[in-house]
């Protein structure tokens, strides 16, 4: 407020000038909000630990099969162990996707269901700033979690496999892309969760639709009888992650109509961009 006659007469003198608004302040405020709700960040921390444990255990269990490979079946290529398929496995990916998506959804619907959103917007009328700060914070935290899980799983599992001489390094074909893709699915799902939270503004509805979208819908578009359905299935978030972690030297194939690596990266980018836009636009426009 400028120094006009409207300034209240205070015992301490005139009103101090208002400091320039900074995005960093909104980010810090959102960080305080997240940090002060233990349940939210525990979701991400526990899921990350579990994901790493699942991946490492999967490979550890496989050591027996590597040491005692099954007898080759006539007419099929000999058994070859795929460290990417097992070490960056899809169970952990689904776990991280749902956990990050839930975290994203909670941070948005949590404000609406409690009414906190009115307090938030009355304090910061710049709604786009608030929404952007939430998006940046959640995307940042989940990217970090994704990177930790992906790196720990890749390096941990391949270190175990080194003694069996089947381990891979980051410089091997397809490995860097696989590690990045396995990490990237986590923030993408967090953004999708935020968009669902902003769209539905209801706890149960947000989480159920998140799980439907991430885990149930892919089952409906899994078959390759109709190309269109398969193409839709290929462009779902977790399908893109599966494609990106596919080992180019695997003895298995990806089936018909498999998307390219670039196609899958664009898919992830498009989901993130749409989710982000939906979140910011809905938070800005709607009455609260």
């Amino acid at each position, binding site marked *: 407020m400028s120094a006009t006659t*409207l300034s209240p007469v205070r015992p301490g003198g005139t009103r101090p000038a208002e400091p320039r608004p900074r995005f960093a302040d909104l980010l810090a*405020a959102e960080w305080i909000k997240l940090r*002060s709700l233990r349940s939210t960040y525990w979701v991400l921390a526990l899921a990350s630990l579990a994901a790493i444990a699942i991946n490492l255990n999967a490979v550890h269990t496989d050591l027996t099969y590597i040491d005692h490979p099954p007898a080759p079946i006539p007419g099929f290529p000999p058994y070859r162990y795929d460290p990417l398929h097992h070490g960056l496995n899809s169970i952990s990916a689904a776990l991280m996707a749902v956990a990050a998506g839930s975290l994203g959804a909670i941070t948005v619907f949590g404000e609406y269901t409690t*009414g906190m959103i009115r307090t938030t917007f*009355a304090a910061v009328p710049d709604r786009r700033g608030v929404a952007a700060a939430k998006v940046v914070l959640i995307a940042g935290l989940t990217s970090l979690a994704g990177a930790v899980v992906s790196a720990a799983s890749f390096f941990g599992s391949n270190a175990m496999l080194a003694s069996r001489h089947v381990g891979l390094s980051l410089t091997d074909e397809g490995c860097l892309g696989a590690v990045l893709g396995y990490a990237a699915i986590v923030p993408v799902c967090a953004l999708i969760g935020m968009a669902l939270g902003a769209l539905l503004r209801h706890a149960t509805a947000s989480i159920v639709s998140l799980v439907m979208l991430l885990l149930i819908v892919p089952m409906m578009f899994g078959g390759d009888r109709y190309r269109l359905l398969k193409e839709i299935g290929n462009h779902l978030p977790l399908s893109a992650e599966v494609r990106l972690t596919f080992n180019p030297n695997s003895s298995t194939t990806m089936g018909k109509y498999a998307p390219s690596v670039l196609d899958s990266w664009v898919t992830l980018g498009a989901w993130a961009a749409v989710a982000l836009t939906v979140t910011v636009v809905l938070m800005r426009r709607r009455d609260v």
Partner: protein
Amino acid sequence: MVPVIEIERLTKRYGATTAVDQLTFTVQPGTVTGFLGPNGAGKSTTLRMILGLNTPTEGTVTVDGVPFANRPRGLRHVGALLDAQDVHGGRSARAHLSALARGNRIPLGRVDEVLAEVGLGKAAGRRIGGYSLGMKQRLGIAGALLGDPPVLLFDEPLNGLDPEGVLWVRGLFRRLAEEGRTVFVSSHMMAEMEHTADRLVVIGRGRLIADESLAEFSARNAVTSVAVRTPELAALAQVLRAEGASVRRAEPEVGVVTGLPAARIGELALRHGLVLHELTTRTSSLESAFMSLTADSVEYLAGEAR
């Protein structure tokens, strides 16, 4: 004085329902302005539109000449307590206020200052979910004070407060107004405002009913009547009506007279040889004045046939 909150032809419609209808009024600095209306009159919707939380269907509202939604940060301009429940129950009061303060670049030391001011210093570290309604009201008031703003809005701030809390809040509002701030407080109880507000804005069904000082409101709306107890009520009523008064029979021997002072009624009774057992002047409360004023615009009436 230059008005701080300016509302012009403000209208909010939800489908076929009109919550706020062509509302025009201003709120001045240095006073406590009461915002009165029955439940569902549109008070909360109006307050939300002042804060830019709801977009008006028509009309404009500015605070200090600017639509509040255009401000990047709000706490140094307007402090508001809309609903004490508009908090996340999982956080502590200190964390809640710290997040608000941090986003507005208010030093975090201010958080403990306002918590102490509202009497929540000892409960600052506890989860808000475990607070009583009165404590939440205090927390909401702390949040409104955080930015030391020149304008303060409170929606039903006395709900859930104990008598000590009510006195404290009244004193606080008075002090804030004396410091030159604009204090705008809504309520559906006239009795609350009678001891708190200097000016009144009364609405019913989203429309403006009155906008005047408390003194003007009382002078205009408080009706004086005289109760007379007499075994000869019918005869007396005839005499009084001939003088232009109106008489309503309250009990078999008690009439309520409006339009004549008690002294005149006594003289007339004496002149006509009528016995009086009681002669009492009654001033109706502002509450009943408010109720009769808004009677036509009550949205939810108990026992109403629909």
